[in-house]
C-alpha cells in the first residue's frame, strides 16, 4: 500500500463535557476511496470538520504528505489541497455552473472577469470527469437535478487540483440512476490519483466504490480495513458494536 497523504493520530475533540472524538486514527491514501462509516452521532462530521480546519482538535497529530502540520482554519486546509463537499452542497442557485465552479476564485483579465477562459476551463473539467448529463454550462444551478448539483459541487472540488476530496453523504438524497452517476464520478476521482473520503450510511454504495473502510463507533475508530478483506456483516458489526472478530487494522499491517 502506498504512503498515506493524510494521517491523523490520536485525535481528541470535546464540546464542553461531551467527548466526541476519542483518540481517533485515520489514514487517507492517494488514488483510493476511503469510506467513513458509523452510526448517527458517531462523530463522522466532527472528524471531517477537524480535517477541514473548521474545528481545531483538542489534541492529536495531523500529518500531511508525511510532515506534521497545524490546520487552524478552513484556509489552511484549502492551502494544503483539501476540499470538502458538504451535504448541503452550498451552491448559489441564482448563478450558472461556470460561476459556481469559480466562485471566490474567479479568473480575471485586469479588473474584469475572464468569462471566456473560465468557461473553457469549466468545460474541460467536466469533460475530464466524463460529465455528459448537463445540457449547458451556462444554465443556472437552480435548474439542475440533485445528481447534477452534486456533480457541480464535486467538479468544483477537483477544479483546483486538490489532493484530498471529502464527500459528506453525496448520495443521500439521490435516486438509483443518479446515485450510480455520482458513484462513478467518485471512482474516477480516485482513479485520477485523488485521495477521496466518502461518508455514507449506505453499505451498498461503500462496497461498490470504496477501497478501504474506516468505522467510527461512539467517537473511537473501531477499525480501518481494506474492503476486500472484510464482509458486509463484519462492517455492520463494527458500526453497531465497535468490534468484529478477525478484522485486521490497516495500521497494524505497517
Amino acid at each position, binding site marked *: 500500500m502506498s504512503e498515506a497523504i493524510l494521517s491523523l493520530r490520536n485525535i481528541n475533540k470535546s464540546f464542553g463535557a461531551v467527548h466526541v472524538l476519542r483518540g481517533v486514527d485515520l489514514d487517507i491514501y492517494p488514488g483510493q476511496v476511503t469510506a467513513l462509516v458509523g452510526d448517527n452521532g458517531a462523530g463522522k462530521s466532527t472528524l471531517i470538520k477537524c480535517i477541514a480546519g473548521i474545528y481545531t482538535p483538542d489534541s492529536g497529530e495531523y500529518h500531511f504528505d508525511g510532515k506534521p502540520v497545524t490546520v487552524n482554519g478552513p484556509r489552511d486546509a484549502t492551502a494544503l489541497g483539501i476540499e470538502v463537499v458538504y451535504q448541503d452542497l452550498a451552491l448559489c442557485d441564482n*448563478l450558472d455552473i461556470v460561476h459556481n465552479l469559480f466562485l471566490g476564485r474567479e479568473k480575471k483579465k485586469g479588473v474584469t472577469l475572464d468569462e471566456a477562459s473560465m468557461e473553457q476551463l469549466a468545460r474541460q473539467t467536466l469533460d475530464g470527469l466524463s460529465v455528459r448529463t448537463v445540457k449547458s454550462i451556462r444554465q443556472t444551478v437552480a435548474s439542475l437535478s440533485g445528481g447534477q448539483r452534486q456533480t457541480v459541487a464535486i467538479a468544483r472540488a477537483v477544479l483546483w487540483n486538490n489532493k484530498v476530496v471529502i464527500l459528506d453523504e453525496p448520495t443521500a438524497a439521490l435516486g438509483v440512476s443518479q446515485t450510480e452517476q455520482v458513484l462513478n464520478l467518485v471512482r474516477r476521482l480516485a482513479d485520477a490519483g485523488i485521495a477521496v473520503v466518502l461518508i455514507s450510511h449506505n453499505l451498498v454504495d461503500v462496497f461498490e466504490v470504496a477501497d478501504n473502510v474506516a468505522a467510527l463507533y461512539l467517537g473511537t475508530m473501531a477499525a480501518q480495513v481494506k474492503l476486500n478483506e472484510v464482509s458486509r456483516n463484519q462492517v455492520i458489526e463494527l458500526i453497531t458494536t465497535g468490534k468484529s472478530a478477525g478484522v485486521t487494522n490497516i495500521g497494524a499491517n505497517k
Partner: protein
Amino acid sequence: MSTQTPETAQETLAAPSLKSAAADYWARIKSGDIGSLPAVLGLVALCIVFTSMSSSFLTPGNFANLLTQAAGVIVIAMGLIFVLLLGDIDLSAGYSAGVSGAVLVILVSNHHWNWVPALLVAIVAGVLMGLVIGWLVSYVGVPSFVVTLAMFLAFQGILLLLAGEGGTIAIEDKTVIAIENSNMKPLISWLFFLICAALYVLSGLRKMAVRRKAGLKTELVQLWVFKTVGLLALCAVAVFSLNLERSNNVKLVSLKGIPDVVPLILAILVVGTFFLSRTSYGRHLYAVGGNTEAARRSGIDVKRVRLFAFVICSSLAAIAGLIFVSRANSVSPTTGGNSTLLYAVGAAVIGGTSLFGGKGKMRDAILGGLVVAVIDNGMGLLGYAAGIKYIVTGLVLLVSAGVDALSRKGGN
C-alpha cells in the same frame, strides 16, 4: 441588453436556430426567470391606455417631462439594487438623498463654494451615511430593515436641522440647475446618440469575437442584430421626438433636445452594469444574495461585500439629491421624503429585481422608474387625485412583488 442573451441554448453540434433560441427563452420564462418582461409589457400597456385617454400624454413636452420627473427616483433605485441583490433593504435612501442635497445647497448658496467641491462633499456625506448603515448591518448584525428604519428617522431629522424648520434654501448655481432644467442642443443630441450607438454595437461585436476566438458558442447573430437594431431604433425615435420643439412660446424660449439628466443616468447605468456583471465584486454580490453560506465557504468576505453595497447605495442617493435640488431649485425638509423611497423600491421591484436577493440588474431601475413615473404622470394628466395615484402605484408594486414571489416558487 446583451447580458440578457439566452446563453442556455443547447450545446449540441446542431447549428443554433432562431427557433431553438425562442424555445430556450420560453423555457426560461416558464421556469420563473421572467426578468424585465412584465415591466416592458406594463410600460407599453400603460402608454397605450394613457395615450388613448389623454391627448396631452404622448407629446414631446410630456415625454421630456417624464424623464426629468423619473430621474431622481431612478438613481435612488439604481443604488437600492445593490442592497436588494443581497436581500437587504435601505429605507433611508430617500432621506440620504435629501441630506446630501442639503449639504450641496448649503455649501453653494450659504458658503459660496464652487459646485464641484460642494458635490464632492455631498457625495462624501453619502459615503459616510452608507458606512454607518453598512457597518451596523454587517459587522454589528442588526437587520437592515431596523437599521435603515432608524436612519430614515435620523436622516429626516438631520435634513430638518440643515434646512431649518419649515424653511427652504434656494440654489442659484447655473450648472446645478441645468441638470434637470436644460437640454442638449439637437445636433449634439444626435451626435451623442450616434456615439452611444457605435459604442454599444462595438462592445457587442467584441464580446462575440472574444467568445468565438475562445472556441465558445456565441449568441445567434441574427438574434443579436434583431435586438440591437430594435433597441437603437427605439432610442432614435426617442431622440427624434426629444429634438422636436416643445415650448409653448417659441419666441420667448426654445425647448428641444435630450434633457441633460439623461447622459448622467446612462453613465451610472453603464458603470453600474459593468460593476455588477464584469467584476468579481459584482459576482460576489449575486453570490451572497443567492446563498450567503455558499459564498462564505467559497472564501468571499461576506461582511465587506455587504458594507460596500450600502456605501454604493447611499453614494448614488447623494447623486439623486443633486437631481432633486436641481429640479426644485432648492432644498427643503421634504426633499427625498414623502413617497420618494417607496417609489424607488417600487421601481426596482417592478423592473424585475427580486426582494429576496440574488436577482436584479441596473436597467431594472430605469424600466421600473419609467413605469412609476408614467402612472404618476398619466393619472395626473387625467385629473386623478394624489390619493388615487398612491393607491394605484401601491397596487402595481404589490403585483410586482407577488409576481416575484410566485416566480421564485415556480423556479424551485
